[in-house]
Structure formats: structure tokens, C-alpha cells
């Protein structure tokens, strides 16, 4: 199961000092702490912890992506927009996975799968032993859907005020963090449902 999905900005490797790593959207499925948790917790503290955990993941993903870009000799130009007509080649986009040990920052050990597209990082935080092939293809699918339906390739749009669309996509393709085995036709069917539910 997926514990969290987030989108954050990806700065170019040389631009380390300008700006900060910002989480643009995040969704945690369920809560991590259980009633048996012996630590004292208040509502505010729990939320703060959750947000900080997500930010910690975003920062790690950004650094992994930058290191991978540097190692492959790809400059920041590749992360920028080429042309809004070209389909974005998601299969060649930088991607990877790494583990988070228990306590750092989540209570349980987790696996992180990430994908970098056009200065945006898409991240899935999973349980420790998950079907990574499925997670990877789900992440690619989510990225493609978000890029298409939010028209992120158009320079003037951004995803900050589009939470309803992001939630709509997640509710169908990753309901409650459940990874789904969707073949192409199922995906098309769901996309039609999605488009039908949005007012024009």
C-alpha cells in the first residue's frame, strides 16, 4: 500500500542556493500512529510531524535526482520545457528508489519511489516490501495523467490551485493508497469517467 504521494519542485543541481525545496502537493493515506502508540501526541503535533516527514522525503528525493542528473551528465536544460507539443518521454525521465530506515523519518521502514519530470518530482512512499514494478508504473501513470489533465506543459499554469483535479485523479487511480493492476483499456475507461465528472 502507498503511505503517501507528493509532488515537489526540483531545482537544477547548480541552483542549490536559490529558493528552497517546496512540497507543492501531498496526500497521506490514513494516519501512521495507531492507538497503541505509547508516545504522547496532540493533534497539532501529529500534523506537524506528518508535514515534516513529507518535507524530509522531498528533500532527499531532490538530492537523489540531482545526483543522478549530474552522474548522467544531463544538465538542467533537460528538466526544462522543450516544447508543449512533444509528448514528454516518461520512460527516459530520471527515476529511482531508495529506502528509509525505521524512525528516519517514518516510524516504520519505508521504500520511496520517485520520478523527475520537468522540474517536478513525483514521489510515492510505500511500505517496505511492495511490488516495485507496479509502484513504478503507477507513478508514471499518475505523472502522465497530471501532466495531461492539468496541462502542466503550458507555461502559465501551475498545480497549486488545482487540488480538486489532483484529488480526482488520485481517487480513481490510487484510491486510499491502493495500487491497482490496470491495463491500458481500464486506464482509458477511468480517464473517460474522470473527464465526464469535471465540469467544462
Amino acid at each position, binding site marked *: 500500500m502507498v503511505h503517501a504521494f507528493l509532488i515537489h519542485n526540483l531545482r537544477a543541481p547548480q541552483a542549490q542556493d536559490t529558493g528552497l525545496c517546496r512540497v507543492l502537493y501531498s496526500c497521506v493515506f490514513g494516519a501512521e500512529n495507531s492507538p497503541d502508540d505509547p508516545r504522547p501526541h496532540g493533534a497539532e503535533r501529529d500534523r506537524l510531524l506528518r508535514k515534516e516527514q513529507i518535507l524530509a522525503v522531498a528533500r532527499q528525493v531532490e538530492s537523489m535526482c540531482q545526483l543522478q542528473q549530474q552522474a548522467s*551528465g544531463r544538465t538542467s536544460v533537460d528538466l526544462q520545457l522543450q516544447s508543449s507539443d512533444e509528448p514528454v518521454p516518461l520512460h527516459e525521465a530520471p527515476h*529511482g528508489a531508495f529506502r528509509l530506515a525505521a524512525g528516519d523519518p517514518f516510524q516504520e521502514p519505508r521504500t520511496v519511489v520517485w520520478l523527475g519530470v520537468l522540474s517536478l518530482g513525483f514521489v510515492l512512499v510505500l511500505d517496505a516490501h511492495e511490488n*516495485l514494478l507496479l509502484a513504478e508504473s503507477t507513478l508514471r501513470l499518475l505523472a502522465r495523467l497530471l501532466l495531461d489533465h492539468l496541462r502542466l506543459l503550458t507555461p502559465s499554469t*501551475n498545480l497549486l*490551485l488545482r487540488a*480538486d483535479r489532483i484529488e480526482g485523479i488520485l481517487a480513481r487511480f490510487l484510491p486510499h493508497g491502493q495500487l491497482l493492476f490496470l491495463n*491500458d483499456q481500464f486506464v482509458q475507461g477511468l480517464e473517460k469517467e474522470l473527464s465526464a465528472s469535471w465540469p467544462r
Partner: protein
Amino acid sequence: MFTAGAESLLHQARDIRDEELKKFCSRVVNLLQKDELGPDAVDALQRLFLIVSATKYKRKLEDTCVHLLQATLCSPKCPEQLQLLCASILRETSPRDDLTLSCDHIQSTRQLSLVASVLLAQGDPKGEVRSVGQRVFRILESRQPEGPSPRHLLPVVSKITHLAPHTLHEDQTNQLSKRLVDWLRYASVQQGVAHTSGGFFSTPRARQPGPVTEVDGAVATDFFTVLSTGQHFTEDQWLNVQAFSMLRAWLLHSDPEGPSAPDADDRSELEGSTLSVLSAGSTAGRLLPPRERLREKAFEYCQRLAEQSTRRALRKGDSDLQKACLVEAVLVLDVLCRQDPSFLYRTLSCLKALHARLCGDPARVRTLLPIAQFFLNHGEAAAVDSEAVLRHLLTRTPSEFFHSPMLAFELTCFCRDNLPLFGRNLDILKRSFPNLFKLLAWNSPPLTAEFVALLPSLVDADTAVEVLHALLDLPCLTAALDLQLRLSPATSERPLWDPSLKIPSCLEASRDPQFQGLLQYLLRATASGTTERLGPLHRLLQPLASCARVVQCAQAVPTLLEAFFSAVTQFADGALTKQLALLLLERSDSLFQVPQYEAHVHRVLSSRFLALCALHPSLVVELAKELLEFVGSVSGIQGRGAMLASVVRPASLPAPPLPRRAARRGLRSVPTQVWAIGEYLSVSWDRRCTVEQINRFFEALEAVLFEVTQSRPSAALPRCPPQVVTVLMTTLTKLASRSQDLIPRYGRGRTGKPAGFPWVREWAPDACPVPDVRSAGGRLLASPPRFSSSSPTSWGPRSTCGARLQRTRVPSSSGSLCSCRR
């Protein structure tokens, strides 16, 4: 896209003040109270979501606003867009104490799912999880044909079993298991009907949906699965997809004993005995209890998926799905065999055939991992030799696919997670360390932590020396892999190496047979038991040393070295320690020249050398010859005009660029070796220590001290730091106290003048107070020098200790021994 406009929007959202937010909340309330909820309401809620999510600190929302958000969410007439926004705002501000949401009266399952997402995010202080679970199961049990579709509820069930499995009763579990069987095995094999909008000219009967098809376009040959396609889908086909997606988690949940309860030995015995009793026939004929029936149908489903994965998919997306389905099928089979050993016989034949087929398919290499996992889990019980599977996995896969980040990650995790299961096969893992290091060398940032955990299992008395060499040569391995990729035919459109770096000289020189041999050694797949001097290869690959990937790998090596030494000191005996210490001395000047690599490695090696000496103090005497050579070569540099000033500097100062010769011989580690000599070259540590040895060391070190203090500092080679001089002098003093012959010399110094080492005073008259060296002998440094501090070492108080050092107490690192005796 993240633009400047977006950044300012975020800032605005974060900076909004409480009063402004209050006003905004009332605006939202006004908008939501209207009969018609239009785009204004959507816009306002989008902004509200941004405001509450942009900051990690709590935002106070007015009570009326929160109340109205909940009401809107539960309202049956509200459009989906608004429901989504209300749910997301409530979830984003969770956990909340003031929620009155309840899913008891919601009819639409889609809406129920949204409300559940808010309730499940609360952390369950009021038993929300249980109440959601109860409501969901009541709907699932109702089984009304026209009732709400369970499609939206299955993910909720899956989440609940993940969060709070104890909230489900056994009869509820059984009920759902029965329904899962129906959905998995008996979904319709006809395509669904398109939802046409009707109209005057439409003739519904004209379009009869045909049967579902396989991914290669052929008509489906058996029951419906996730790999069956069609133009439109029926509700039960949707449920088939959902059911399989949650199957593994459900199977694990619904087995109350769990796979971990029985002892591993007992379980394999149980599996073995069951195997002999039961035949290969399936039990489909008998009426089984729900749990067992689900397992049986799950088994059939997995077998069908395995068959369907042999087909050649028409679309790329379906081809990727086939691989994911294969992995899932094997994982489910693994769970089934753990829960019910009678599945083992049938599964084994299926998996062996699958493995044979997949071995030859490079596109499906990642699917080999769960199969190997299966054989590790069940191999012993089934008397199957998992060795061949592991050998293939560890000796071939890393060499061919090290450049795939996902495979490298999965394979490393596989090795790390299964260490307890390797058993007799641990040897294969150990011998394959050169191959595993390829994964690490190419993908060091994500894999370093995994290898730190894995290293202790790769190192034993036989492999330790070879592993240490391999670790020190890891950046060189990265460079060699890069070269190998450039020389091989391209396998993908985009080059796997850094195209901005051009290395024609390397490519040309690599055709030389001498380098071929060394390259082959470095790129070997298994441990060879021998070591090779890779100096010529370092020079050949020098153009690649500044490549980003090599530099990243070099940065990981010090951490790995620490892990290595922590592991090896657990079991190393005297002989191995001696070999390793020798290795440290030899390799200190033959490292691949990556920027700053040598400095960092020397820091680790020097502290570890000292640690090794502390464990086996007689090491210094045993390695006397090599140490003498080492110290001698340091002083021999004088003839080349370079200075010894490249020794340790305080961490706060940047290292100046040094000529290569000066950096030769690992001069940063000189002080530690010298300290070790001073500490342990004594008859109290090893009876074989002779006065001649002490004298020889004294002379060599005295020569070094003379050189470091007499050479003129220049812009490129600043003066030697005081710490180094201190260590040399301290050591000389200690040695002098152990040998009768040396005391007069100590008193006189090289120029023949009395009160030893007067040239030291000339060297640093103002920089730091250089007292009479005799007093330095009176109060010596209490512990080995720490080379990270920036303050000059204190010299200690003057004492009236005379030229004859009678009772000089030498506090050594072990803290107890007085090492000066006559």
C-alpha cells in the same frame, strides 16, 4: 511547473494573517450556504486548501466553516468537485478534535469512500476505524443487485485491514472472502456495454459486446483477469481488478496464525510431511471453508496470470503490466505456500518452468527476484536446489544490468533482506561481492546505506583482504564500468554514460593487452582469491576521475571502509590483522586520484591503523621493516624538492593544491603511523623488539623531523603544521627513553649541539612557544593527536627533567602502561 508566480502564491498563502483568514472563512461559509454551488465556491475552496496546506503549522478555521465543510461533503446533491475539495481540506487539517462526520447515513459508496478517507486520517482516537469498517461491511453484506456498487469500498477495506486488522470479526472476514472468490474467479467474460447517451437514432441492440480479449488481441481462453481487455467493462470485472489488487494483503490478514508463528524448522518439517501425504491433485471438488476456497481460487488466478504473461502484448502499457502481474503472482504463491504447504508441489513445477522461460529474457530480469525469493523461502522444504537460481542471479545479472537503478536497488535489498535465509548459499553471496560492488559503484547515493548493512555478511577471513582492496578501488571500478559501457554496443537510445565527457585517449589505450588483463580483473564477477596491482589502470582511467559518478562513489567509500573495519575487527586474528595493516601501508600511496579522495581515505585508514595496533600491539614490531621503509620513503622526497607539508591540516582550512609528489605516500597518515611507532615499539609490547630496531627508527624519524623543519615554506607548500612536528618529537622522545645509545644523541641533536632539536626552535620561534624539548619529554601528549582542531597543541609545562629520562610516564591510549624501561 514551478514558476516565480507559483512561488509568490505560496508565499502569500503562508503569510496570510489570522484575521484575513477569518474573513476568508466567512466568505467561504456564505458561498457554501447558497443553493447553487458554482465556480466561485470551487475557487474559494481551492484557495482555502492552498492556505491550509502551504504551512506545516496549524491554521485555525472557524467552527462554522468546518461544520459547513462536513455538511457539504455529506450532502448527496453536492457535485463531486466540491466534495473532493471539502474532503481534502478536512484531511489536510487532520487530526481534528471537532469532527462530527459519520458515514452511517451516506448512501453513495463513492461519497462514503471520501468520508472514510477523512475519518481514517484522524489516527483513530475515537475508534473511527472500527466504525468505518462496520459500516462498510454492512453494505458489502447487503448484496443488493441495484444497491451501491462495492467498487469504491474495497480500497477502504484494504486500508482498514492495514491500519487496524483487529477491528474485523471472523464472520465478516469469511463473508468478504466468499465474495472475493466470486469476483476473482467468476467475473463475466463478455465485454461491458458502452454507456450511450441514447437518442433517436441509437439502436442499442446493434452493438452487442463481444467476449473479452487477451493482451495480444486473441479471444480470451479462460476466466477474466487483470490481463483481460475489452472496450468497456462490467461492474464485476472492475471488482475483479480491485479484488486482485488487494488479494495479497487480504490473504496475509485473514490467516490468524500468520506466517511468522511457526518455527522455521517445524514448518519445513510440516511442509515435508504434507508433501509426502498429499497427491498433486487439486481439492477443487470438495466444498471448502471460505479461507481455503479463496486460497484455491487465488492459486488458479496466479496460474492463469503466468500463462497470460507469455503472450506478446500489443501495447507497451500492457507489457509493463504483465511484468508487474508476474511479480505479484509469485508473491501471492509464496504467501499461499507459507499458509498451506499442500500448494507447494503444484507451485514448484509452475515456477521452475517460469524461471527457465524468464532467464533468457533481458526485459524481464526484475521478475527473477521474487522467484529467487520463493526458492529461498521454500527450497529446503521442497528439497529443491536453490543454488542454481541464486548463482544465476548473482553472477550474471549485476554484470549486465548494473546501470538500471531500479534493478540495482531491488537486487541489493533482496540480498540484504534475505541474509538469514541464505544458509549454505551464503558462500555464493560472499564470492559474488565483486559483482555486487558494481551495483554500488554505479549507483552509490541510494545504495550506500544498504551496503553498509550488507558488508558484515560479505566479509570473512578468506575474503577480507580482497574486499578491502575492492573497496579502495571502488571509484576506479566506476570508471572502468563507464569505459566498458562506452566500448560496448549501445543498448538504448540515450547513452548510459556521461556524454559530455570525451575520453579518446582512454578508449585508445584500452586496446593494449596489458590493460585488458587488469580491466578484466577489476570487472571480474566473483572473488578470485588473488590481488593485482592496479596502478597502471589508475593512470589509464585518470581522465575519468573527475566524472561526477566517480566522484559520488569516492564520497561513499570512507563510510564503507568504516563499516568494513567494524565488521572485520570482530573476527580478525593476529595474522589477518597483520595482512590488513600491511595493506593499509601499501595502499596509502596507490589510490585512484579522484579529487579529495585520498585525503578522506587517509583519514579513515590512519585511525583504523591505530585501532589495529591497539588490538594487536605487537603489530608494530612485526611490521618494523615495512614501517621503516614507509617512514624512509617520506624523507626520501626531500631529494625531489617537494615538501612534506601536505600532511594533515585543520578541517577548517581548505586544502591547497599540491603537486602530486608531495601528496605521495599518504602523508596525512604519517602522524598516526609515527604515533603508533612511539606507542608500541617497545619490549613491553613485544619481546622481539630490539635496541637496533629502536635505533633505526629513531634515525629515520629524526631525518624526517629535520626535513620538515628545515625546508623553506613557499606559497604552494606552506609550513608543516605543529601537530606533525609534535608527534615526531614525542615519538623520538619515547624511543630515546628506551635505548641507552640514544640518550646522548637526543641530548645533542643532529648538529652536535646540546639540548636536542634546537633547529625546531629556529623553525618556529614566534608561531608557538617551543620550549626546551626536555620538558616536552616530561609531559607528553596523553592521547593520539586529533587532527581536526585548529589550535596549536599545547606543549605542556616546563619541568626540570634532565637529559637522562629516568621515569618518564608515557600515558598510552590504553592508559595503563609505563612503556619506558631500560
